[in-house]
């Protein structure tokens, strides 16, 4: 079902944890769907110098979160904004069809954290960036 790369990230997720006083923070997903992701960014001189994530989610959620943090660590904010879920999936050697929605979450998490950074620092928010929200479970 999962590629070797995915399983490697599930086994050893990179950059897992939290950053105290992050410069950017985002939380996306919905616990009812079994998918919540938190993204913590440390930003210096327009560069993502540190990044951490936490996730409540399946193997695909863990692997895409982990992979996306690897892909944008050390990158400029603009570069980070250009990372798509497709690129993340490709870097993982693909995901099963029914797990493709998980890869969207990683992209959304990054964008939510960047939105947080731009708006907290009173910077102009790039077009298309919106504040993302986790939905509460309403059973």
């Amino acid at each position, binding site marked *: 079902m*999962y590629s070797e790369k995915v399983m490697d990230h599930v086994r050893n997720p990179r950059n897992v944890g939290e950053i105290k006083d992050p410069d950017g923070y985002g939380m996306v997903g919905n616990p009812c769907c079994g998918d*919540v992701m938190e993204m913590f960014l440390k930003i210096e001189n327009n560069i993502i110098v540190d990044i951490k994530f936490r996730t*409540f989610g*399946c193997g695909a959620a863990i692997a895409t979160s982990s992979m996306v943090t690897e892909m944008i660590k050390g990158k400029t904010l603009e570069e980070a904004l250009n990372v798509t879920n497709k690129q993340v999936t490709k870097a993982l050697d693909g995901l099963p069809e029914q797990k493709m929605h998980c890869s969207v979450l990683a992209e959304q998490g990054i964008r939510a954290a960047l939105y947080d950074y731009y708006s907290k620092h009173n910077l102009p928010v790039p077009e298309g960036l919106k504040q993302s929200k986790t939905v509460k479970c309403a059973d």
Partner: protein
Amino acid sequence: MDFIYLDNNATTPLNPVVLESMLPFLKEDYGNASSVHELGRRARTALEKSRGQIADLFNAKPEEIIFTSCGTESDNYAILGTAYLPENRHKQIITSKIEHHAVLHTVEFLEKQGYPAVYLDVDENGIIKLDQLEKALEKETSLVSIMYANNEVGSLQPIEQIAKMCNEKGVKFHTDAVQAFAKHPVDMSKIPIDMLSLSAHKIYGPKGVGAMYIRKGVKLFRLMHGGHHEKNKRPGTENVAGIVGLATAARRLQNNHEEENKRLSLLRDKLQTALLNNIPDCYVNGMNAARLANTLNIRFDYVEGESILLHLDMEGICASSGSACTSDTLEPSHVLLAMCVPKERAHGSIRFSLGETNTEEQIDKVIDLMPTLIKKLRSMSPLGHKSNK
């Protein structure tokens, strides 16, 4: 790697004795059971012997057993075959919210075709509510289909009472006994079940073969058309090796079911107690139900099921998550939701289903491992602890 296989409700290892009984029919006795020559007659003899053996386990007649390709086909045949009879067109069908998809999706399909359908609720232990059934039966009904034992949480339904309620109303009763067959023997001379589905690969038999008990006199609209096989009820060249394997597996298990159920429930209870004691915020789904001896469905707050599974998998431990993780939906298990487990908790549920290959050492290893594993995953989870942003 030596696996610790705790996913026996998904499928079981083929027992070596069962394989042994199949091999002649995968080797020298390869005839088609419809052929008149010696090789055909050998196949026919084996087929009819197997049929008799399965019938005996039910205290039924051989002609009341037909062989199918799997539990799903048996379920479909029982339900569609009853509903499509001209006299049953558009009559109500009653089932439960916790059926396997082979039953649930079939009834949902019929509902879309204009058949009124009732999906009975279950209580928090996964047992259907008989008073609801009683009430639903007031409307003219062609069929009630209630599973014998639930595959996800193991809850055993009050089949004898249901059968009698249906029988009194003259309503046909089908039970999906895929998980219970040979573990909970049924005497058809005592319980008025009209149809029963079973599958070989849940009882240490081969995949791709199932059977149905169809009480004498119960009519079914054909699901498939072709040759005159299986008393004209199921066409297609019979899977002789598979059928022999099914019969061997069924006899083996039923003959030994009391002892094995006892052994399994001891192991299962040991696992259950240890996990409940050693891991905070964890709960057994269907804790107080009469349950299959081998099944433990347990939920761990703040973590997601599949990620637990994958981490268990890295240690060679095979289990399954309560959620339908291979389906296209994001919905958690319909069974757990019907038992009123909140959605986000349903997502954190794991099913350990034990089987004849499991030993106490294996269970001890799982007991050792789980607390650390859950702790690790919880530390990765945004839920359940305040993060200091």
